[in-house]
């Protein structure tokens, strides 16, 4: 009887370990799969040319990703620029200042915001944000915009990123012991001084992690951006110009343009670039976390 139980335990352990290893290696599996399919184009063209050339003429065999990379960068940057201050202020308010009732009422709403599919965000962007920018904001600032622009995409992405950052930051703030706040308050610090000098400092590693999650989310978002950013393969001159981020490029063309030589390979290279950048974000954030922890914790 006992032997059977122990045997079961051992078999289960092996099986689970197998799954752990598989899921742990999945990142590499995906990276390898994409690399393998992107290899044909990498064999012919130098990587530098692929990454930094602005000429995108697949029919002539020119695959310059630069406009797409810059498009992705701008859209993500605008989104993070909006999302970080708003999310941090909201998270601090909800966890440090708001009444318990407010906190309990808003929590499900924030979760709901996180659950809304990107297509819905896309529709909303098309219906509300795009006209707003075309008819009001751009004319107000004396420029022209079709509305399908870096700014529209950035705004919609920012809203998608809010719940990601808020959720993590609130968790982090909640894990800080109240005695630490008390220690500062007891010295005669005001609540805000305590938040600014003690709570946020203590939460810094968590905040960095939250922002990285937010950046990855914005960076790889496809559908909403595809619907709003305008998809013009040119370097955007201002936030009112359209952009064509990498994920939108892949979604728009994959499966359809497979008759063009190397097109398929180029799009998988684009996927590989997305993957490598996300991996880079994560490694970078780990390094920053360790640094900060060494300094203050």
């Amino acid at each position, binding site marked *: 009887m006992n032997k059977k139980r122990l045997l079961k335990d051992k078999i289960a352990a092996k099986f689970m370990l197998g799954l752990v290893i598989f899921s742990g290696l999945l990142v590499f599996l995906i990276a390898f799969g994409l690399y393998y399919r992107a290899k044909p184009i990498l064999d012919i063209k130098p990587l530098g040319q692929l990454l930094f050339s602005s000429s995108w003429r697949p029919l002539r065999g020119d695959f310059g990703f630069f406009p797409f990379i810059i498009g992705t960068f701008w859209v993500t940057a605008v989104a993070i620029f909006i999302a970080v201050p708003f999310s941090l202020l909201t998270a601090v308010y909800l966890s440090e200042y708001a009444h318990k009732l407010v906190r309990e009422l808003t929590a499900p709403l924030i979760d709901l915001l996180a659950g809304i599919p990107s297509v819905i965000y896309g529709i909303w962007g098309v219906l509300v944000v795009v006209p707003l920018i075309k008819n009001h904001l751009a004319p107000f600032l004396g420029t022209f915009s079709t509305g399908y622009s870096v700014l529209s995409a950035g705004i919609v992405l920012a809203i998608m990123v809010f719940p990601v950052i808020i959720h993590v930051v609130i968790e982090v703030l909640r894990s800080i012991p109240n005695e630490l706040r008390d220690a500062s308050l007891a010295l005669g610090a*005001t609540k805000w001084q305590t938040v600014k000098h003690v709570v946020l400092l203590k939460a810094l590693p968590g905040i960095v992690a939250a922002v990285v999650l937010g950046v990855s989310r914005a960076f790889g978002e496809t559908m909403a951006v595809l619907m709003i950013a305008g998809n013009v393969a040119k370097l955007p001159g201002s936030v009112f110009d359209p952009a064509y981020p990498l994920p939108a490029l892949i979604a728009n063309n994959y499966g359809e343009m497979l008759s063009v030589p190397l097109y398929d390979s180029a799009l998988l290279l684009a996927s590989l670039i997305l993957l490598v950048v996300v991996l880079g974000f994560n490694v970078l954030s780990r390094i920053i976390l360790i640094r900060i922890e060494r300094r203050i914790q």
Partner: protein
Amino acid sequence: MNRARIEENLFKGLMLISTVTILTCLLLILGTIIVKGLPAMNWAMVSQIPKGGFYLGKEGGILNAILGSLYLATISTVLSILISLPVVLYLNVYAKKGSRLAYFSRFSFDVLWGIPSIVYGAFGFTIMLYLGLRASLLGGIIAVTFLIFPIMSRAIDEVMRMIPAELLEASYALGATRLETAFKIVIRQSLPGILTAVLIAFGRGIGDAASVIFTAGFTDYIPYSLFRPAATLPLAIFFQLNTPIPEVQERAYASAFILTLIILLVSLSCRFLTKRFTKHLIK
């Protein structure tokens, strides 16, 4: 002293503005979808498949996409549970504290969580080519499972990590094996969290378009085989919105309304189930 007070009030004001702005965004989104979608809703939308000329504004509904999405998300969610639960149990029950494997696994979940869904779509398509599959329900399931199992794993791990070590020790002290402890104590203690994680993953699976755009394909028929293409709600919305015909665009709004309703339902049941299952927990 006075400056400190002004600064505090300034930031309090900013915080309040931020919070209100974010909540307003949510209400605006829901409001827009309801205002635009509700008038375009009718019974045919949810009970019929597209008929001839549907995409030109003629009769029909999107039952094909509703069912396709439900099949796809449900099967993917079940598969994800089968992967996530053993993995997370291993990390929290079997792996030693501070083990390298656990650290590495959690890191890789973070990375997987951050990988854009379009990349899963592209990778899924690569696997399908390798297996000789064409765009099909099965292809969609593969891509969506890869997409949502890291989400589920991270969410379950977050809860299981909170279980105090003393609880496990109490079980070991009674002579239970790790496997028995995992199933009888750990799963039970984290059940609300597991349910939440499953529903979050399901919601993500049903709402994602980029991963299925070339793996699941699209069809006007209700899927009856794993090897046939399947329509999905997000893609139905996307395609309908992209036509120039106003009637079809109206239907896109109605479809968006249906998808939002499903997500709302998932979110609500999440709240409800969590409340119900917290009864026996050791706090």
